[in-house]
């Protein structure tokens, strides 16, 4: 790896690495992307929740997760009406204000707002803007084959941009890199689950988030260096309740909110940036790599309000997540104006009521700056459980 997009973390202490990651996550100028472009690289921006980044990686184009940013929508506001989530506006803002320059933009049919983005972006930029039609019928026998062909189609579009054909060997290499990345993230999450005093949700979040804007090889290198440091961290366990955080699958809560939550409780599992951890096992390196990747999306994957799969009813999956992480309660959030998130909140809370599992319900917006009220409510909630 001759080009490093993010090397500030090297030779730093654990706290120093986390601070550098935070800085990068909050930097709406996306310096890693700029560095990539300056070196002659091309960029594929993919909207939430999940994109098969391996295909982009194999083609030598940088996959950049478009997940909004703490920016003022000076340009994008006039492109949207009211009653819409913030992430679609801030993501467009990044491109309109040229903070991020892309060569291809891909969105997904995760929700009705996101499905409009290919058209909106396409009207404003010269580069191709398209939808990757991930299946909403995960239960059809034909879905894997369909998705494999859809991946092949996107691959061809990427090849047209890079001018470089993607070989099967390159794809398998990329699968191996991303398999390793997901293994390392699973390790990070296991640490958080088993010994949450060693790694707060906020720290895990920034360590994970940077992966969406740098080369995956770099991210792997960083995670491999960081995990032993976390394991050796001289931090004592505190008296905090164990909770699962649900609702961070698309628009992201502000970093300071995640930090505030981590001060009240141990978040032992969550769905923050679940797209980076969507596939739960290694994707096979035997046989057809695109088919393997497609099959993994459908058969070896997590769950989210934006994917329909009758084998994975969301409330059942949430209860499983709570049980598997030995959590005592749940924080059920949704981004403002997020239709799938807000609808799922009701299913979740009814299921939790039935099981007698306490929960805290809230909404957030990525641009929120004040959480005093929520902090007080959350503190009261956690104290009620601790001392109730």
């Amino acid at each position, binding site marked *: 790896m001759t080009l490093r997009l993010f090397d500030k973390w090297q030779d730093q202490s654990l706290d120093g690495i986390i601070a550098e990651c935070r800085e990068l996550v909050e930097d709406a100028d996306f310096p890693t992307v700029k560095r990539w472009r300056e070196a002659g690289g091309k960029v594929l921006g993919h909207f939430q929740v999940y994109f098969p980044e391996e295909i982009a990686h194999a083609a030598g184009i940088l996959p950049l997760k478009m997940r909004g940013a703490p920016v003022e929508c000076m340009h994008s506001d006039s492109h949207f009406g009211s*009653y819409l989530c913030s992430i679609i506006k801030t993501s467009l803002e990044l491109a309109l204000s040229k903070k991020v320059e892309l060569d291809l933009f891909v969105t997904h049919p995760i929700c009705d707002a996101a499905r409009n983005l290919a058209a909106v972006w*396409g009207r404003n930029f010269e580069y191709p803007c398209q939808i990757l*039609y991930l299946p909403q019928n995960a239960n059809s026998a034909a879905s894997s084959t369909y998705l494999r062909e859809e991946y092949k189609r996107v691959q061809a579009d990427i090849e047209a941009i890079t001018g470089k054909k993607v070989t099967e060997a390159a794809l398998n290499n990329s699968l191996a890199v991303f398999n390793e990345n997901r293994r390392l993230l699973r390790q990070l999450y296991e640490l958080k689950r088993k010994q949450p005093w060693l790694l707060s949700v906020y720290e895990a979040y920034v360590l994970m988030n940077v992966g969406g804007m740098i080369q995956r090889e770099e991210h792997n290198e960083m995670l491999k260096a960081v995990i032993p440091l976390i394991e050796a961290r001289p931090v004592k366990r505190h008296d905090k309740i164990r909770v699962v955080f649900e609702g961070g699958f698309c628009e992201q809560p502000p970093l300071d909110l995640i930090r505030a939550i981590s001060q009240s409780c141990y978040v032992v599992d969550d769905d923050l940036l679940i797209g980076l951890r969507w596939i739960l096992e290694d994707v096979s390196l035997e046989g057809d790599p695109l088919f393997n990747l497609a099959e993994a999306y459908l058969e070896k994957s997590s769950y989210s309000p934006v994917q329909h799969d009758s084998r994975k009813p969301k409330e059942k999956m949430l209860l499983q997540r709570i049980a598997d992480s030995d959590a005592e309660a749940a924080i059920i959030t949704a981004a403002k104006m997020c239709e799938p998130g807000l609808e799922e909140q009701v299913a979740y809370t009814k299921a939790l009521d039935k099981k007698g599992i306490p929960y805290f319900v809230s909404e957030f917006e990525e641009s929120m700056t004040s959480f005093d009220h929520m902090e007080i409510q959350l503190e009261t909630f956690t104290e009620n459980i601790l001392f109730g």
Partner: protein
Amino acid sequence: MPEDKKVDIVGRGNVEGANLFRDWFAELGEAARNNQGAAYVFVMGSMAEILKVFDFPLVLPEITSLQTAVRRVADEYLTIAEDYGYSPDICGYVKADIGIHLRERKHPMGAIPKPALTVLTNACNTYVKWAEIWERMYNIPVFVLDVPATRQAGKQFLVGSSDFTRDCKYVEAQIRELIALCENITGKKFDIDRLRETMAYANDMNIGWARVLELNKSRPSLFNALTDGTVYLGVSNNFRGTKEGSAFFKNLVEEMEYKAEHGIGTQTDEKYRLAFVGVPCYPIFRRFNEMFAEWGGAFVHSTYLHFASGGANLGFEYDVNRPIESLAEGTLISVREAMDNMFHQDRVLIDMVRDYELDGVIYHPIKSCRTVSTGLADGRRAMMAATDTPSLFIESDMMDKRVVSEAQMKNRADAFFEGLASRRLTAAKTA
């Protein structure tokens, strides 16, 4: 045609449409009394062609919900759903429907049967969340028919291309799975000849709908795309694939051709030809139209008549000699068309401005529907840049009176027409 018969034709579509609508509700009431499970479906890809083969009564909850708003009782149902825990910020159709179910399916127009299954396409993601709600309430199968639509503006997969064929194969495979599911639920064997029959009726309706829409290019326009159009749309959806639906559209074409031949327009003194973009403001349905009609504004077309007919505006004709393959093709093309009319509505409107000689475009983005509304502000910019056509952008809702400000809408509409009048005057002076 005898003279008195000719006179009866004008307005016949509205009368027949209203009667059919009452018949539909009566049928649902009967199904409810007999405890017969219905198929809950949606307007964009109802798959009525298949479901009618199995004699499922069809419940279209978008329509039963909007009727609560037209009857000015939507707020009761919305409140029930919100008290149950649903956010004020989600789709009003969904909430009104939840309210109906929490009231044991008692609707202002009668009883609604419970579902035996639900069939939906991905034309609207909220359909999926909605279906999941019924799945929990009634423990019923949810069948999502995935229809991969246009990937990139201006690059639709052409019929016969390898990309199109691939998508079609996927839709066909799912249709076969749907048939197997219906056999399982009903215990009835699939009858391919009955499918040919429902598809033949659907052909009549598609052809009829396309013709009726085309005829409204007439000057003056023959029907109000907003008010009358919604009646015709109701029949298009509720009676899809039926003898009654076929007869209705044959009659409607006859009526419109008669009106075109005799220069009979609507009750509006047509001064300005307008297109409506979005979903109607059902809480003040008639009054909304009046705000425009008072100025001589006539809605001659609407993207609603395209997408809410599930793309039937294309007039796709099934080939009944290869029914399942053709149903897959037709579903893919039509549902894709519905989605294009929502996401790429700017391109549709650029053609509409020219073909229907529009003087203005009225955009009505709504809080409840992000599918239709998300892209409208941006699409409007593109439309105006391409056509220099004046437009009005008024936000409200299709269900929730709390976000409908009639006075504000009236002010905006008045200002819009003053602008149109002034523009016309300037153009006349320049000429």
